[in-house]
């Protein structure tokens, strides 16, 4: 019986590590291309329409970067958490908590000049996202309650809470019956950075955040501790690393960045809170982080790539009559194919002639 086993490579080859996301993307585009054929369209032309819809004009490009903004932030949230093997799948809920904080503090309760108001809203949003995660990380640390399930379940609770607030006490009386929050005050609105487009300051803040996280992860002790806890928790514990403190910090950072994504959407893109503020940005962040191999700088590029798929899919759908759900299929395929390529980077596959002789 011919069988195989995986042997860890002694050292990873860097060129291989760099091209692996490209290979993963290529595989998922080819597989999704089969679905385009199934839909009766030409895949090459469809992808052309998709890219044109995402990058074909100044407006399209600006829209892609605007869409990338929250995805980069939730991607960072996932990348820092997954690096420490803390499975925060709750970025969606944390994003909405950040949006709730923006609505609470940004719609008239406190009015400061822009230069203070905008940082204030981001701090409040980040705090809200982190605080939502705090009870769950404490439950994990004290009682070993699995964070995967609790973070996932809390997403549903938060969305229902937002629904209640927007239909009830926080509903904007001026909104003519639509469930939406009051508008963020003028000094809190993130300014446009490209005239006549929806691209706003949030994108710059997201990129800046990615750079900061990269610095923290690579140039500070806490970054080293986070990586150690993730790569081997028991060894890290034996060598005296503070697992408890590190996990807590990771959770606050992770939830905080997802909360910031809620700020960019509320104070940047829309100007007010709605129930459809996030069409799954929290979950898209997981794909972004994986595609970037959890590298914070890579998250910028994988975030823009995923945003281009989402933005371009609308144009492709109109032109080619392919359902827009193709974008989500591509994202799902990308997560799986990146796992596949990671395995081939980190392991050698060794075929064994006969298992009994092994």
């Amino acid at each position, binding site marked *: 019986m011919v*069988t195989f*086993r*995986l042997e860890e490579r002694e050292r990873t080859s860097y060129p291989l590590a760099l091209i692996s996301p490209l290979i993963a993307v290529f595989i998922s585009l080819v597989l999704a291309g089969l*679905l385009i054929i*199934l*839909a009766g369209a030409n895949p090459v032309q469809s992808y052309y329409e998709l890219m044109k819809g995402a990058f074909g004009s100044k407006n399209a490009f600006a829209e892609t970067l605007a869409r990338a903004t929250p995805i980069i932030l939730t991607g960072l949230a996932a990348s820092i958490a*997954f690096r420490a093997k803390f*499975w925060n*799948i709750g970025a969606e809920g944390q994003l909405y908590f950040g949006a709730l904080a923006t609505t609470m503090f940004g719609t008239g309760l406190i009015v400061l000049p822009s230069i203070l108001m905008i940082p204030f809203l981001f701090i409040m949003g980040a705090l809200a996202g982190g605080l939502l995660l705090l009870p769950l990380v404490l*439950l994990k640390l004290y*009682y*070993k*309650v*699995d964070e*995967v*399930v*609790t973070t*996932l*379940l*809390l997403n*549903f*609770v938060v969305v*229902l*809470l937002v*629904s*209640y607030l927007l*239909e*009830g006490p926080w509903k904007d009386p001026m909104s003519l019956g639509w469930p939406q929050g009051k508008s963020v005050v003028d000094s809190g609105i993130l300014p446009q950075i490209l005239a006549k487009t929806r691209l706003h300051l949030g994108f710059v803040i997201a990129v800046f955040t990615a750079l900061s996280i990269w610095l923290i992860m690579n140039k500070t002790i806490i970054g080293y501790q986070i990586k150690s806890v993730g790569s081997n928790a028991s060894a890290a514990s034996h060598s005296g690393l503070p697992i408890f403190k590190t996990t807590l910090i990771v959770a606050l950072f992770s939830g905080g960045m997802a909360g910031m994504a809620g700020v960019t959407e509320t104070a940047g893109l829309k100007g007010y809170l709605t129930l459809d503020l996030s069409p799954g940005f929290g*979950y898209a962040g*997981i*794909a972004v982080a*994986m595609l970037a191999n959890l590298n914070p700088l890579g998250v910028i590029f994988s975030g823009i790539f995923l945003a281009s798929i989402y933005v371009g899919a609308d144009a492709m759908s109109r032109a080619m*009559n392919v*359902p827009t*759900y*193709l974008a*989500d*299929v591509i*994202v*799902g*395929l990308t*997560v*799986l194919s990146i*796992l*596949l390529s*990671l*395995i081939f980077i980190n*392991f050698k596959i060794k075929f*064994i002639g006969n*298992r009994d002789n*092994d």
Partner: protein
Amino acid sequence: MIEFFEIFLTAGFWAATIRIACPLILATLGEVLCERAGVLNLGIEGIMSIGAMVGWMTVFLGADLYTGILAALIIGGVFGLMHAIFTVYLGASQHVTGIGITMLASSLGFFIFKLILPASTTPPKIKPFQPIDIPFLSDLPFFGQALFQHTPFTYLAIVAVIFAFWLMNSTPLGLSIKMAGENPMALEAQGIDVFLVRTIAVVLGSAFMAVGGAYLTLSAFDAFYFGMINGRGWIAIALVIFASWKPERALLGALLFAGLDAYQVRAQQLAGAVIPYQFFLMMPFVLSIIAMIIAAKRTRYPKALLVPFRRGERH
């Protein structure tokens, strides 16, 4: 206040409890099978979703209801096989694989649904499973309506519990599955292929999940909606922990949980004016988190859960 207690005395409440429990029972059993073999399957939410779609679509396109269940079973098995290839044979992260499978399975289901029915504003309907009349039993007062006026799919879900119980406790395969999740080295030492045992468990478990999804479109409702799984898969994962990875306890946990859910729907009708409906809808998710906290003290995970097995490696 008395009307809040009277809810328990209505046969409709008990019938609804069983109806709500069925998809959870099937999904929880499926996850129990996977996790007992050492594989966390976070693909559950997406597998339920595509199972609901495929089951419904098969019937919509002209097949009978049982063929619909079979189609869901097969698509669940296919995604289970994909999960197993990644996590069992290639040793990829079970967390990320599961999330990826959920993303892929649910979006693929939506894509195919839109492809076949591009412009349906009102979801088209099928004729779902109808309650069957059991001579004498169905006519009993109270118990007749509560227990014996259900659809064949409901009884099938109960049979699934018995099957899973028998499989885990009375068959060599069940023993191997449990060993694969506790001590895979010992299993290999007996000359049994750990990879194969784990793969069988994940494929079978995923098929259960998809059938649980199909219960929603073929028995509980008559149409497929986007997002109709609505976290039931994640709730099932919490129930697995609550049920200590045992099929019979999964049944009890799902029934208890469904009972609370059926109760809140009825209480909502009584208190709807006072308490906003969103708080009632939160209940299942809050209860699941509470259940996990309660279970945390006695939780004993399968020892090899999340640990990829590699041949020829000494731990």
